[in-house]
């Protein structure tokens, strides 16, 4: 079949070559197209609010791939199965999904399409940002959205600078032209966007409204989760915006929980008192210890005060009163427990409200002379701790300062009649578990480990911090007492009582192994020139030692950290 053209050139091979080139050309184009469609990193926002993801999401135009770390931020939990090829995802309602993981790049990721339906979210790409949001609103959505009603559990919108969602027309930002009609956008945004009523089919509605200024409110843990919430409409103020929408995942922070009916005090004895918050529904109490004066804040998301009552007087040696206080966040009722003594506390939900148990801390509520205390000068021997050169080949070593201050504190306490044991009295090394073991062996009441801190950046931090283990209520009381009195005595900023879980997942070793109330106190920072100068002065070391002794005494005698200790009538020679 081969022929020749007019010039006598063989035609069949030429046609074949052209055909092959065409096929390869098509293949080349397909490969190029695939390369162009390769997933690219995108920022992910949830209803306009960025999701902080350590690993960026990837979008190839057809699919959005989310890193596994994004799931908790969407209110989901997951476990990996089948050699990590499948994620078993648990939805907020408890339903589980099996999601095959994709590998658009090196890491396994979750295809968003598998979650879009169950979460009632869709994605919208704009530039390098992919926004996850509820499906577009029906045209009548706006009419179905009621303006927010002020309730006792959240500040009235007018007070908070918020107007009903339908009529919001905030002043334009400086330099921007005043738009007509309702506008929306975050505080500080250069250009307000149009108002966005968004309907969640059969789930409620969301309206984002402008606020004139940033409000003193904290952002919800995960605003996105509102999209998968239960029905209902509440006003949620967050991060300069007001969300009118379904609240469940914003939790408990905004859902009306129950109106308080009464606050009762049950005093078992002088060392225990129970505060019962009676409500017409269960409450979810959270507590926080506030300082100056020391008091316990009891936060009750969604709760409301009874008509005409905001203070309840207690007649108990540990507790003076319970009274309402300014809300820390919208939708959260705060009660404050005014204390008379240093107390350990525990809060819990009950069927008809909540309760807070207050008690004298372990080993406290007596004279300090009855106490047995173990002082632990940190480090020692080859473990010098943090150190810094001061010229001439000399170095300041943490182990020397801790031994000096702890020895002085032991002397002061012994003079007061306290039985004190030291984990070391010389420059010797000890293992970490061996230190609190001394307290157990000696049947001690308290364990105080003395340290000096250091930051990798000079002069970045200054002050005294007292660490307690995890959530231990007794150790927290000891830490409160020590942080205040040591910082005050040494003239350092008080960085407060801090849980060691904020440093390490399993906390600090000497506290973890302790069987008695225990605190690790960081006197100051060797990396801070001001702190360092003080830490080296003998008179400041003596003052710090006095602060430790006073902190111990304040704990044992139950004196609030800001209150003066009674003059001791006798000293043991």
């Amino acid at each position, binding site marked *: 079949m081969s022929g020749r053209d007019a010039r006598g050139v063989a035609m069949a*091979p*030429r046609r*074949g*070559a*052209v055909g*092959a*080139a065409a096929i*390869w*050309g098509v*293949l*080349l184009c397909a*490969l*190029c197209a695939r*390369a162009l469609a*390769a997933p690219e990193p995108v920022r992910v926002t949830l209803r306009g609010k960025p999701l902080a993801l*350590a*690993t960026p999401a990837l979008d190839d135009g057809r699919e959005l791939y989310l890193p*596994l*770390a994004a799931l*908790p931020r969407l209110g989901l939990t997951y476990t990996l199965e089948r050699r*990590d090829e499948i994620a078993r995802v648990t939805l907020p309602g408890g339903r589980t999904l099996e999601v095959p993981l994709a590998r*658009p*790049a*090196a*890491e*396994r990721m979750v295809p968003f399409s598998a979650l879009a339906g169950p979460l009632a979210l869709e994605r919208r790409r704009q530039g390098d940002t992919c926004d996850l949001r509820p499906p577009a609103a029906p045209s009548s959505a706006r009419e179905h959205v009621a303006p927010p009603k002020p309730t006792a559990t959240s500040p009235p919108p007018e007070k908070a600078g918020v107007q009903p969602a339908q009529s919001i027309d905030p002043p334009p930002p400086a330099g921007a032209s005043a738009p007509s009609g309702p506008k929306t956008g975050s505080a500080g945004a250069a250009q307000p966007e149009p108002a966005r009523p968004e309907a969640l089919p059969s789930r409620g509605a969301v309206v984002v409204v402008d606020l004139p200024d940033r409000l003193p409110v904290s952002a919800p843990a995960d605003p996105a989760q509102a999209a998968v919430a239960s029905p209902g409409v509440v006003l949620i103020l967050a991060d300069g915006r007001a969300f009118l929408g379904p609240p469940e995942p914003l939790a408990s922070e905004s859902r009306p929980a129950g109106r308080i009916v009464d606050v009762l005090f049950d005093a078992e004895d002088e060392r225990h008192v129970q505060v019962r918050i009676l409500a017409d529904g269960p409450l979810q109490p959270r507590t926080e210890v506030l300082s100056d004066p020391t008091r316990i804040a009891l936060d009750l998301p969604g709760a409301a005060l009874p008509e005409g009552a905001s203070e309840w007087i207690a007649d108990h040696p540990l507790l003076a009163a319970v009274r309402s206080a300014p809300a820390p966040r919208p939708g959260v009722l705060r009660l404050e427990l005014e204390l008379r003594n240093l107390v350990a506390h525990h809060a819990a939900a009950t069927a008809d409200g909540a309760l807070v148990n207050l008690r004298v801390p372990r080993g406290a509520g007596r004279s300090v002379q009855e106490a047995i205390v173990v002082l632990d000068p940190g*480090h020692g021997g080859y*473990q*010098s701790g*943090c*150190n810094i050169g001061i010229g001439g080949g000399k170095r300041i070593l*943490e182990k020397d300062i801790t031994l000096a201050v702890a020895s002085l504190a032991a002397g002061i306490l012994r003079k007061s009649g306290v039985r004190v044991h030291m984990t070391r009295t010389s420059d010797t090394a000890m293992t*970490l*578990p061996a230190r609190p073991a001394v307290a157990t062996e000696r049947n001690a009441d308290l364990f105080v480990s003395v*340290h*000096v*801190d*250091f*930051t*990798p*950046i000079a002069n*970045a*931090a200054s*002050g005294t*911090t007292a660490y307690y283990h*995890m959530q231990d209520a007794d150790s927290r009381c000891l830490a409160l007492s020590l942080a205040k009195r040591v910082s005050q005595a040494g003239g350092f*900023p008080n*960085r407060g009582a801090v849980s060691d*879980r*904020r*440093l*390490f*997942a*399993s*906390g*600090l*070793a000497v506290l*973890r192994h302790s069987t008695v109330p225990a605190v*690790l106190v960081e006197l100051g*920072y060797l990396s801070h020139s001001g702190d360092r100068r003080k830490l080296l002065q003998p008179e400041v070391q003596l003052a710090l030692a006095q602060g430790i002794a006073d902190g111990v005494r304040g704990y044992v005698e139950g004196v609030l950290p800001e209150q003066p200790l009674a003059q001791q009538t006798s000293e043991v020679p």
Partner: protein
Amino acid sequence: MRSRAAVWLCGMAVLALAGVAGWLWASRSGEGGAREVRVSRPVRAGDGVELREQSIPVPSGVEPMRRAVEALAEPAGEGGSSALPKGTRVLALSVREGVATLDLSGEFAALGESGLTGESLAQEALRRCFAQFPEVKRLTVTVEGRSFEGEHSGPWNDLPVREEDTAAGSEGRP
């Protein structure tokens, strides 16, 4: 002659296609080509220090996990600091059944002189570093083959690398 030229052209096209395909495969599998890892370094923040993440490129042919760890010990820019003691090198790194075992050089032992804050920042930086690799769930650190024990935190064995796997949950750094 022309048919020969066409065959030669096709051959070149095949080679070019193979090259493109290889490049695509390599870049998608993450084993080579340009990609990034994230590292956390201490920076001044308010009245303290916090970790701040930044992305760094991984050169072709370099294992990303190893590169990420090594970058933690490199000098940071102005106002920052390295998360691990300077000079720390990765002697060995393996991942088996979700547990990464990281063997570091002796320089890492200088962490004992970094104070509680320095030790905490180093552990957190390592945990964050490994958390970006989904195959790693827990981390064990050794120094020249021996178990490492922090002077405040104790042994660095079997540390969870992600928040959700820890008792600490979402609570932040002071």
